[in-house]
């Protein structure tokens, strides 16, 4: 069976229905958020880079957690996603470098994770699984045929969320 594979770049979102896989590579401090409605086999993967959109005219909505999550929900809802059925999983938000003497530096991952959770809660979506924090990059993949989410990191076995 020829499966479609969609690649999501940094600050972007892709969604698909049925036999497809959506993948985003090497999430560092960024966060990958998957939305999956199992009844209609609709899945989306959002890759955000920063917590909040400061300039409301900035067209890059998917770059930020706040505008990115809201826009993803809006789009997927238009394609039939129902909130009560939707499974949400998140991964990423690592701290790639440990800087001595400057604790605020490199905390962007943590801030991203906090904002993602806050916005999802405001939008009343429950996070059913997460793999965040740590000091390593992650590749995140969702199989839209069954909603399986796989996390790949270097030197560790694959993890199913």
């Amino acid at each position: 069976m020829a499966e479609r594979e969609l690649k999501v770049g940094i600050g972007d979102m892709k969604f698909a229905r049925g036999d497809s896989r959506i993948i985003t590579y090497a999430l560092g401090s960024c966060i990958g958020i998957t939305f999956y409605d199992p009844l209609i086999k609709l899945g989306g993967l959002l890759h955000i880079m920063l917590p909040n959109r400061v300039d409301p005219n900035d067209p890059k909505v998917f770059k930020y957690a706040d505008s990115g999550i809201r826009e993803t929900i809006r789009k997927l809802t238009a394609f039939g996603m129902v909130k009560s059925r939707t499974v949400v999983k998140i991964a990423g938000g690592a701290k790639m470098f440990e800087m001595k003497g400057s604790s605020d530096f490199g905390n962007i991952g943590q801030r991203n994770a906090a904002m993602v959770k806050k916005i999802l809660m405001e939008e009343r979506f429950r996070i059913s699984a997460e793999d965040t924090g740590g000091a390593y990059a992650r590749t995140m993949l969702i199989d839209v045929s069954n909603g399986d989410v796989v996390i790949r990191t270097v030197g560790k076995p694959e993890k199913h969320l």
Partner: protein
Amino acid sequence: MKLKRYEDMNLLELDVMKEISSIGTSHAATALSKLLQKEIRISIPEVNILGYEETVDKIGYIEELVTATLVRMSNEVNGLMLFIFKLDLANAVLEKLIGKQYESFMDLDELAYSALEEVGNIIICSYVNAFTQLVGVEIDLSVPSSTVNMLGGVLTVPIAEYGYETDKLMYINAEFIMDGKKLSDGLLMLPDIKSLNDILEKLGVS
């Protein structure tokens, strides 16, 4: 401030950055040469202003395991310096320094890891020293911090740090030539936008 983003630099300004980088990288090569007691030549660097994905493609591939050393700049120039080792350059350095080669960065022991961190730090420091002398600015450098990680993940650090200012990175692409082998470096200099304006102004091109 004249420039709002890296990509606003015109050809003349880029040329000036390239000229300075060329002197900076040759200082770095000299320092590395001394450390390894080996002749190291360096090609004239290109200064590339690239998006995240283009930078990844230029250096390697997104899930490629690399060792990266990060140093923060402060005082008259604020920003980050990042040096990325790919396995071939790392092995050439480690062979000479500790007499060992590694199949993968996952196998690095503590000694090899700190050796690479130190070499990355020396390259960054000698580059920045040349830079400060040429431009006439004071730059303080933090202690280095390193990581063994996917290339794509490493590059999200500078891209996120300056994400509210720019979506571009400044990649100084030069080749170290050791024993007739070309080894590609991965040096990124990332002043914040205010500092970039100050630098260009000091050099009289802005």
